[in-house]
């Protein structure tokens, strides 16, 4: 083992770059959140005024709570749709399983902005959804309800973040030893009992990880609400982004993002704790 001094030196050499490009930015943004803006100048005077303004203003606070609720809806919807998909892929064998897995994973790498663009055109007045519903006779004429509202944001986010939910669930299902399933069947449990008492509890770590991914990604997304949300689909991400554009109040934007960061960190820690407790 090298001497203490040498170890310190090597650490400094390796950690210097990550510290400068990751730690320093995170630190300076947290410092910015306790500064204040005055006529396009930033004054660093260590004030909590931004946080007070945010928590004391119902417009901002309700937008924030609304965003948390929206993210929760995205998580629930993606779990309801995503879990059966992961389960189905897991039940398949050899090449079929691998092919389906790849098909489910590939959309992760499809351009985010492109998905947004096509979903918007599909949900629009002349979009595929409306055309299909009209030609099936379900709707008399194309409807506006699919776009530019909170529901449109929910649907679009669920489609975009669904693969992030399916994959971790599949990976935790795959780790379940076949012998456990056979033992359960041998002991007389039916398909449903085996699922409820063996498969579902053992797939919890992946389910929690997937839910966490979807929640955190939806939490900070500001482009989806802007493109499909219209005037009612306002989220905290949009508010933060506007502080760095037209509103030009960087400290206020930074303080809201700091709260977002806090929520994300708390969730990551809580999910890590929950997943580790359930590990066998």
């Amino acid at each position, binding site marked *: 083992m*090298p001497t203490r001094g040498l*170890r310190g030196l*090597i*650490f400094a050499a*390796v*950690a210097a770059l*990550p510290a400068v*490009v*990751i730690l320093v*930015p*995170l630190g*300076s*943004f947290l410092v910015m959140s306790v500064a204040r803006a005055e006529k396009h100048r930033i004054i660093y005077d260590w004030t909590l005024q931004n946080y007070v303004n945010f928590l004391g203003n119902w417009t901002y606070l309700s937008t924030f709570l609304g965003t948390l609720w929206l993210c929760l809806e995205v998580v629930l919807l993606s779990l309801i*749709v995503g879990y*059966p*998909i992961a*389960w*189905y892929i897991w039940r398949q*064998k050899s090449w079929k399983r691998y092919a*389906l897995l*790849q*098909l*489910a994973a*590939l*959309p*992760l*790498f*499809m*351009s*985010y*902005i*492109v998905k947004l*663009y*096509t*979903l918007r*055109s*599909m949900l629009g007045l002349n979009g*595929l959804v409306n*055309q299909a519903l009209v030609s099936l006779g379900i709707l008399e004429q194309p409807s506006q309800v699919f776009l530019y509202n909170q529901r449109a944001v929910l649907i679009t986010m669920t*489609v975009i973040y669904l693969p992030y939910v399916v994959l971790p669930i599949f990976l935790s299902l795959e780790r379940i030893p*076949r012998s456990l399933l*056979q033992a359960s*069947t041998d002991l007389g449990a*039916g*398909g*449903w009992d085996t699922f409820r008492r063996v498969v579902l509890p053992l797939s919890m770590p992946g389910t929690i990880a997937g839910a966490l991914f979807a929640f*955190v*990604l939806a*939490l*900070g997304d*500001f*482009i989806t609400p802007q493109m499909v949300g219209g005037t009612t689909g306002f989220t905290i*991400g949009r508010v*933060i982004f506007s502080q*760095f554009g037209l509103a030009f109040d960087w400290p206020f934007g*930074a303080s809201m*993002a700091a709260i*977002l960061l806090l929520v*994300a960190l708390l969730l*990551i820690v809580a999910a890590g704790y929950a997943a580790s407790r359930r590990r066998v």
Partner: protein
Amino acid sequence: MLRTRGDRIAEYATCAVTVLVLLVLYAPILVSAVFSVVEIRRGEILWETFTFRHYVTLWSNASVIDALANTAIVAICSAGIASILAVLLALYTEWHGAIARTALTLLIYLPFLLPPIVTGLALLVASANADMDRSVLTIIIGHTIFVLAVAYRLVLTRLQALPPTLIEASFDLGASRWQTLRYVLLPHLASSILTGALLALTLSFDETLISSFVAGNEMTLPLRLWAMMRVGFTPEINALVTLVLLVSMALALAAASLLRPKGEPEED
């Protein structure tokens, strides 16, 4: 295994959900590909409008070409830098003399775990504090720290799977530290580095949220598309979108084929 009726119903129902959702997930590529070559009115495809013209006019659109060049530069630089950093950091965190291993690992994963809006504006604030103008360089930094976690994870997993006897044997046979790294470790890590670099390229190619904070007046392809989208739908955008999707899927498939375990044992 015995199959009851309930099992079969569950199988069919989940199969239906899977097929339906895959259709929705793949609709973007189908829809944009179709719209890029023909016009569709009132649910009918107008075959007489079939043309590849929009793909040609794309190449004379200077703003698109500029954005494409920026995207390529950013993707290649950030994937390259992230791969080198990933190897260095993985070797360091696996070294028995490492200090603050947990903190360093957390630092590497943070930009990937945090909402991109936080990473993006942290970089924006830091570059403003350092009086650094937003440019291609700031985009490269942003993408590098974002993709680093993926590259690091892949190299680390491979490194941990290597038997320690391999390195001991190398030392016993008289190889120096450098020779062990050059002739034993790196060849074994090569494919994981390549996979990491490919995934990094794919992620950087699509990255939008961090870029929107650190790009300044520069444009990457997703930012250009975002700007074009706000104006409206044109066949030209569809042509561009189709190309973007094909490139990112090709990159992802290349990475996946490298990741695929060879000689996988069959279950059951």
